[in-house]
């Protein structure tokens, strides 16, 4: 009897002492990145967050509205912070910038996590054969893309929230948080410092150089994951962005080297080319990529997935066509004017471009130069002042401003018309292309760098490449005697207005940022120390560094 009781007691004891690994989760969370396919899901997230959720046309809108190259249409008001942007109210919290901030940092954290994984596992966390195609064409490429995206995200942030880089000067100012690590504790979070501009630009350049070194020249369908086929960065995209960053930093020599790298690939290897201006914007098939686009945002258009219809939403705030334009947005039945549009090309810019006769004295007719320029014909649209009672089937619809919200527009306007120029548009498929970096931009930058460096002949050559593409019947317009900063800038405006880079050109070349058509805003001179937008309140409220 006693033995039975002892056995009973022992049984109970064993019962409770057999709790080894008691707290272990029987179904622990699987580490998501286990091979190059799942590693690509991290890239999908980073691209999606940066290009769609962060950029989304917001930075392009802010840049165009504030740069002096745009005109605010009278008595228009949509939900965007048009007043802050147009009148350069930098101390105001701009709601659009909240998303820019939030999603750029999401991109950075994802990239930091991936790069940290790479570094912690001796560059081979998935135990791949080091000389295998999967390792070389996928894994290394992916790490290159993570570096590229981190650089692009940081560059987006400093362009908006930090004072411009001071050429050969003091860049010790601190504006935004800077880390390349993933915080694991609350203490980690609150120990993230603000980075100096010098640190940030150094990191951007470093990441882009790393990306350039690791990224392939092009997509290889036989060895690479199919997701890489479109809308992703290759080594030329990294070099091109690096060139643009170095250009802004005033390191023209280094910038020219990177520009040479890309342009040589275009010219010698025919990888890229200058096609007609519209070709970078009007593709109907997502798989058809303009030869001019070094990097483009891929607005998914197929399949049944809910997020396939991404597009640059805010383009509707500063361009002619609405997102559901059809047939390329030209002609009756196809053109759908954006009722949300608040901005056109400024008269100041048109004067600089030589495309409007004398807007300062109320002569708003387009010049012959404009009429003959393919860019003006294909990527801009001229409308006379508002005329009431016009329907979209009326021929006058193509001639007059007719959107009710624009009823106070009494003078002719030149509209940006680069977006929603694809084919059929609907909720699920908005056929258009959004080049983020294109060859024409690079030619113009190199033209200025060459001119600035005394290589006038090279500069003329580059400038005429752009001119000739737009004016094929009147080639080689520029000569060594006519080239200067102003003509290069004028060509830059014609080529790049509404694409988000004109401020970069101005700052890189240290020219004054014009007031444009504004009356209460002055031109801004280098080093543009106050040209940075307020940090979102959602950050300053929570970050003790502010």
């Amino acid at each position, binding site marked *: 009897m006693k033995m039975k009781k002892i056995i009973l007691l022992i049984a109970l004891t064993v019962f409770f002492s057999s*709790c080894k690994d008691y707290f272990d989760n029987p*179904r622990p969370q699987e580490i998501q990145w286990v091979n190059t396919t799942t590693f690509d899901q991290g890239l*999908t997230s980073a691209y999606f*967050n940066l290009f769609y959720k962060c950029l989304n046309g917001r930075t392009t809108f802010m840049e165009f509205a504030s740069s002096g190259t745009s005109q605010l249409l009278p008595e228009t008001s949509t939900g965007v912070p048009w007043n802050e942007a147009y009148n350069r109210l930098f101390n105001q919290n701009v709601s659009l910038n909240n998303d820019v901030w939030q999603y750029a*940092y999401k991109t950075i954290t994802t990239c930091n996590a991936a790069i940290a994984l790479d570094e912690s596992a001796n560059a081979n966390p998935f135990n791949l054969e080091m000389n295998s195609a999967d390792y070389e064409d996928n894994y290394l490429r992916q790490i290159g893309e993570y570096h590229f995206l981190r650089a692009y995200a940081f560059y987006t942030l400093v362009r908006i929230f930090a004072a411009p880089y001071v050429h050969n000067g003091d860049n010790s100012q601190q504006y935004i948080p800077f880390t390349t690590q993933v915080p*694991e504790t609350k203490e980690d979070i609150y120990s993230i410092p603000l980075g100096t501009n010098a640190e940030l630009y150094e990191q951007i350049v470093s990441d882009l150089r790393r990306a350039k070194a690791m990224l392939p020249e092009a997509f290889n369908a036989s060895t690479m994951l*199919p997701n890489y086929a479109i809308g*992703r960065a290759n080594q030329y995209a990294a070099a091109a962005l690096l060139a643009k960053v170095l250009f802004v930093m005033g390191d023209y020599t280094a910038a020219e080297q990177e520009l040479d790298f890309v342009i040589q690939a275009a010219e010698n290897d025919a990888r890229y080319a200058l096609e007609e201006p519209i070709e970078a914007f009007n593709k109907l098939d997502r798989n058809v990529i303009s030869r001019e686009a070094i990097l483009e945002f*891929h607005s998914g258009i197929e399949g049944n997935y809910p997020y396939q219809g991404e597009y640059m939403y805010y383009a509707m705030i500063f361009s002619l066509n609405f997102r559901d334009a059809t047939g390329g947005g030209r002609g009756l039945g196809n053109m759908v004017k954006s009722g949300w549009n608040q901005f056109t090309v400024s008269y100041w810019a048109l004067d600089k471009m030589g495309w409007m006769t004398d807007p300062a004295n109320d002569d708003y007719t387009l010049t012959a130069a404009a009429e003959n320029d393919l860019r003006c014909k294909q990527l801009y649209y001229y409308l006379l002042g508002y005329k009431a009672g016009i329907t979209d089937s009326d021929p006058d619809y193509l001639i007059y401003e007719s959107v009710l919200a624009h009823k106070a527009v009494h003078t002719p306007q030149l509209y940006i018309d680069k977006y929603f120029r694809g084919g059929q548009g609907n909720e699920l498929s908005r056929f258009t292309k959004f080049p983020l970096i294109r060859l024409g931009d690079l030619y113009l930058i190199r033209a200025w760098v060459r001119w600035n460096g005394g290589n006038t002949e090279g500069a003329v050559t580059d400038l005429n490449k752009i001119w000739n593409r737009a004016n094929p019947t009147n080639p080689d317009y520029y000569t060594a005697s006519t080239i200067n900063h102003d003509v290069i800038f004028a060509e830059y405006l014609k080529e790049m207005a509404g694409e988000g880079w004109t401020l970069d050109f101005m700052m890189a070349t240290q020219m004054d940022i014009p007031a444009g058509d504004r009356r209460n805003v002055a031109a801004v001179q280098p080093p543009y120390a106050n040209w940075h937008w307020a940090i979102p309140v959602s950050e300053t409220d929570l970050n003790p560094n502010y």
Partner: protein
Amino acid sequence: MYKKITAFICRRKRLYSLKFLMKMNLVMMALTVLSLQIAIAANAQRVTIDVKKATVRDVLLKISKQTGYDFIYDPGLIRENSRITMNVDQVSLEEALTTCFGGKSLDLMYKDDRMVVIKARKQLSTSATIQQREITGRVTNEQGQPLSGVTVRAKGSAEAVVTDDEGSYRILIPQAINVIVFTIVGFELQELTIGTSNVINTVMEESVSDLEEVVVVGYGTMKRRDIIGSVATVTGADINKVPVANLSQSMQGMASGLFISNSSGHPGSSPDILIRGLNSINLGTSPLWVIDGVPIYTGSSQLEANGVKPVSAISMINPADIESIEVLKDAAATAVYGSRGSGGVILVTTKSNKGGASGVSVNYDGGVSALPFKQEDIWVDSKTWWELHDEAYANSGFSGQVDPNTIIQVQFLDVNKPSMTREEASAINSDHLGALTQTAKFNQFGLTANKGFETGGVLFSLNYRNEEGILRNNDFERLTGRFNFNFSPIEQVSMGINMNLQYLKNKGVPQSHGKGAAGGWSNLITMLPWYLIEDETSQSGYWFPNSGYNAMASSDPALVRNESDMYRTISNAFVEWNTPVDGLRVRGEVGVDLMLTNSSSWTSILMSTTPYQSEAAELAITKRTVNLNGYATYERDLGNHHIHTTVGAEAIKGHDYVRRAEGTQIYSNYPELINPMNRTVASGRSNYAPAILGVFGRVNYKYNDRYILNFSIRQDGHGAFSEENRWATFTAVGAGWLLSEESFFDSQDIDLLKIRGSYGQTGNTNVNQTMTQMNWDLTRDQYGGDFLPGSTSLGPMGNRGLRWETTSNMDVGLDFGLFNSRISGSVAYYRQRMTNLILKGNVPWSTGFGINELWENVGDMENWGWEFSVSSVNVAKAVRWSTDFNISLNENKVTGLNEFEKGKGYEGTQTIRKEGERLNTWYLSNFVHVDPQTGIPMIEQRDEEKWNNDYMTVSTGRLIPMNESNTNANKMIQSGKSDLPTFYGGLTNTIRYKAFDLNILLTFAGGHYLLNLPNENTNGQGSYRTNGISAITTDLVGNYWKNPGDIAKYPKLVYDDKYPVDNDGNPSEAGTNFSRNINSTFLLEKADYIKLRNLQLGYTFPASVANRMKLQNVRMYVGGINLLTLTGYSGYDPETGNQLPLPRTVNFGLSFNL
């Protein structure tokens, strides 16, 4: 055997072998003792004793201390807990003992010069075959009802039996014994002398004192008198007097400190249950429920499509199975539950066979319920509705009459709009409330069967309840079976199993609100009196069933079905070993709460809000909690010292398995999700529910039967925390002083005066891994070439440093018993300080996670209050009238928040969380009046400078229009006002007269404020919202502004929510929008209430009548639940707010024993 006994006795010093000898064969004991006896006359010890109301046991201890003698006696011989007053000075030992025993004739036998065996005067037989006689009889209560479970014992003997369900007993007792003792909890002990008759019948009198009552505490039991924690008890008998579906609803108003508020009038719905207020901000605050040692799930796992109200898992429990419920409130009581104790603990003990009882009891309850109001009591009729609209239309500068089609155009689905003229609309007056609700019935049948045997017993119960909701087709059906089996397979070892099998079926009705929604209660306010209900020409028979405005259609199972089937077992088994070490018991328990819920939702193609598309969803959840515990208790007396210790360990592990599928466009004979054309959701997942491991201990120490100390400790580990923070220790200390036992305390009227206090910590385990670990997920975002199936989502970042949320609880109380305990009760003051509250804070977006949240231990909060309870027997004669009253006061203040909420706090839509304020303090603009000159409602303007700089909401003294913009921008902290009552309680009166019994239960709560939303949607808006989207409450008529100078409750009637003023009150042709002013105090009302919660009149048939029916204990009753509510709140119900009110129920029942 001799050696064993001798050795055993010798180990003891002055400890009396009570239990041991009780369990020994008396004959053997006598033989042993007799061989050792010597003459008492030789003893010359002198004794001095001066005690008042001391127990016999304590007096013996004192004598023992003075004389050096130990005493051995049979507990059946001496009532050791009976109290005596004794004053002797230098008397002999036998004189002292004789005085102590009240002059009772006893023999004293000495042995070994240090032991005295006390026994009855009559010599025990030395023969092993004692002469016995059989005594039979029947035990009844004062109403003549048989009492089962009464212990019948031959005094001076170990022989004992228990009465069966008929109150009958049969016992063999030694011929030498002539006294029988009857005992049962709740009744006075009775001793009857046996005469010549072998039939002894008796009537037990109800006890007026429960001090000797044994109360279940965590991992053991204690006498109420010795408890120094705050523990309230609700008996199963009290619960079953309120025959509602949910056990917890039955407990309302019955225990101090326990706040239960019904959230809805649906059968089985989940009430809010709080013990001593809210004690967490983000984590759950519901108490831990433990049934027979098994912690159970108390939430709901049903599909809640379209706002269908779920039923509570607690409603699966059969209230008739409950023996008693203990509510543990302070740390002294709950610390032994450690990490799970911060919300308090509710211990449920179910009935079991106590051995000896056999029989079958049957009960039936039935009743009908209805809403306490009708359509016309709340809403204006169609004629008035149109008149008010026309007036508003004219006031807004429109000419002519309001066209119903302009309203229809806005309100109905684009593809499905009716059309009617004004004349047609004016002629319709629909009773939507009548169409939605019904007079509902319920039936409940119960059966309990007992069978006792020599070493144990079996109890089986069955219960079936069928209840209609007052919303049509909102039905509730429950079937429970329970099997309890206890036995002793070997000596000193007992085992038992308790198995509950439960099934519940619930039919839900959609509650969604708004255009195109599924209809239901919340849509009632949008069902205009001129909307039709039926349409014979339509395919469904209803007028536009998918509009959301057709009450009958939205609950017709031919068009909408929401059903849940729940299967559950709460089962446990135990093994207990009464070890050879006296006072040491070891017990092991294993329990499981396994619940399977299958829910389905289906919406007809004729009903779907997406036109012409049927929809269906399925949800299956398997929930499992396994509990293992083992503990040892050791109880020992050391002279004046009494020690009771408990040491144990416990392991709890939960697991959830969830499967869900949804689809649209289903066409088949069985439409619930067979072959949908479009499958919208298909998921299955397994949640890792918390794993808890704990070791615990408790020591209760009592000195001289009046000074009590208590210490408990528990160390818990929780799987959700990181390894470095996984374990935490929770301790509590308590002390009590039985002041009334002191010799200087000289009052014949005060039986008990106990001062008690405790301090300790408990924790909150409502945490999960997502709070402490990095969260990886996949989203459906896509980018690039051929789409990958998903993209990485990183975060929110878990906080590995997260620690336990801790509640420190200080409790000071006074328990009292007066006038032979005819009045008893307690007063307690408590103060809880919740520290390291786990708050979901935001981290800078630059951290870069998908969600910028982080759980942190950053908040502090305090709860404090008073509790008072008193029970009295007011009359104890032919009429017996007893009263139980309790009231609890609770205050709450947030004392610490994270660094980002320290200033203005966390501003919710209508409430604010701010340091120095109550939790859930209302945050609404201050409505002042309807401007007598303009008829526009006005609010106070907030001083923005004060708010931004000093974080204080004060008025500038200026009044501004109560439009939407101003209302949102000028919210004021309504200090001290929240939706949680500051006082609550209950008053029970029970009156018995002969065969009649009357039970009256009043519950009350107050100090809280609620928004009256029906008014918001009709006439509570800043502007009178007569733009045709809502029904209108009758209160508006005659109470709105018409002419300058009017002092009106409601503003001027206008159409389209606009008054011609700007935000500053200046004239504005365009006007401003007054449409959404739910954020002002205009709608805020005090919600104090007193409810006649239960009224029951019972009649017990005389035994003679019952016997003729071959039945026993036949009782029938009639009664009512929620028959009356006294309140100043003008909404539906001050308890359920804007949800379905509690119905009035008239019920009746019958119970008897076979």
